[in-house]
């Protein structure tokens, strides 16, 4: 299975709280009117300019072995490897919300509208995350439909550059998945253009395989630790 999706922007509109949080404003604080207005305006611009697109492709564990290794620079103790080795199903994915939103962010900065530009940047990052989540949800539903997913299973996505999985794996992801078909390109530093893009692997398997502590050597360099919430959500589901 290899599928390309043009996703409706309405399905990936970031919630205002997450946009504000991405701007460093804690969720428990009530922002002032002006900040709220900026966030609302940024979400409107997101709705106007974002064109969420994604590509997903099933892959066998053997084929993924080669991709996972990348340029051989993964951390030896990455949790991704033991998880995918025990998985039932795997799918490569890449998403973008397109270049036009990045162009709009640049325009706002050129016009000295820094606050709105920065807010739109945060909204775009959050929207990209939701687009990746949309693809993961699609794959989950697909597995249910074909009878390969039940209440003992769960599904999580991982991206090169996180959890000890080196970014160089993106080269092989691109070779197999060909995200160029949705206008995502990879440069020699393993950076995707448009900037608001995400690549990775969706892993489906028994719930237990996804549990790990965030005490790996590389966890201290991670600034997000979103694995905690994602694992918890997966186990609770």
């Amino acid at each position, binding site marked *: 299975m290899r599928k390309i999706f043009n996703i409706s922007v309405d399905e990936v509109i970031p919630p205002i709280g997450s946009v504000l949080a991405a701007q460093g*404003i804690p969720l428990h604080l009530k*922002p002032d009117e002006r900040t709220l207005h900026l966030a609302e305006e940024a979400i409107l611009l997101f709705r106007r300019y974002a064109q969420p697109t994604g590509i997903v492709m099933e892959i066998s564990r053997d084929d993924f072995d080669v991709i996972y290794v990348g340029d051989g620079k993964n951390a030896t103790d990455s949790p991704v490897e033991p998880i995918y080795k025990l998985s039932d199903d795997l799918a490569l994915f890449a998403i973008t919300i397109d270049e036009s939103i990045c162009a709009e*962010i640049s325009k706002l900065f050129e016009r000295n509208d*820094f606050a709105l530009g*920065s807010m739109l940047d945060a909204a775009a990052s959050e929207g990209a995350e939701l687009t990746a989540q949309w693809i993961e949800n699609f794959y989950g539903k697909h597995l249910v439909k074909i009878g390969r997913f039940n209440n003992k299973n769960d599904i999580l996505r991982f991206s090169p550059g996180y959890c000890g999985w080196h970014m160089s794996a993106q080269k092989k992801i691109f070779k197999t998945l060909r995200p160029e078909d949705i206008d995502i390109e990879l440069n020699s*530093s393993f950076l995707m253009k448009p900037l608001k893009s995400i690549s990775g692997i969706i892993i489906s398997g028994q719930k237990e395989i996804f549990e790990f502590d965030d005490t790996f050597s590389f966890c201290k360099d991670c600034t997000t630790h979103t694995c905690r919430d994602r694992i918890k959500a997966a186990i609770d589901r």
Partner: protein
Amino acid sequence: MTVIQELSEQLQQGNPKNVAELTRQAINENIDIKTILDKGLIAGMSVIGEKFKAHEIFLPHVLLAAKAMYAGMDLLKPLLLKEGIPTRGKVIIGSVQGDLHDIGKNLVAIMLKGAGFEVIDLGNDVSPEKFLDTAEKENAGVVGMSALLTTTMPVMKKVIDLARARGLYGKKRFIVGGAPLSSEYAKEIGADAYCFDGVSAVETVKRFAGIF
């Protein structure tokens, strides 16, 4: 409240129209240009920086204030040039070769300008040669490099190695910043400082300002 105090206040409130009006008023009242800049605009941004550092305000407020600052600066710039008043110093800034991230670098540039420095922003994907050629041509005292990826960080070392080869090391100051960076890495490659964010970049460059 004097016009200068009001100017600083309006800047802190992030009101570009009022800042432009008050700057015009101060110019018309023949207030010394340097006073308008230092005691009005830069002083206002400095309060904003302090409040941001103390988590009393958040990024959007800083950026609204910066927009107001620029509105005043647009009026002052031609006069500063005409009177030959130097800026606090020149900083070259850019995201290193291979890196297309620029929001963080833009925010740092905005803060540095807000602190009265002249900033030459080379954009993203900047080669080591371009950093140094520009620093030499513009006689800039500080070269600021930004990288968001571990794969592009090594370009910072290339810039510093090239600076050594060109005899610029020690004459220019090199600051680095970005998510995967650390002060250990900065030290390892021979950078003068690692800056966590825009506020720390301003503090660092201010510290250097006495040198060049």
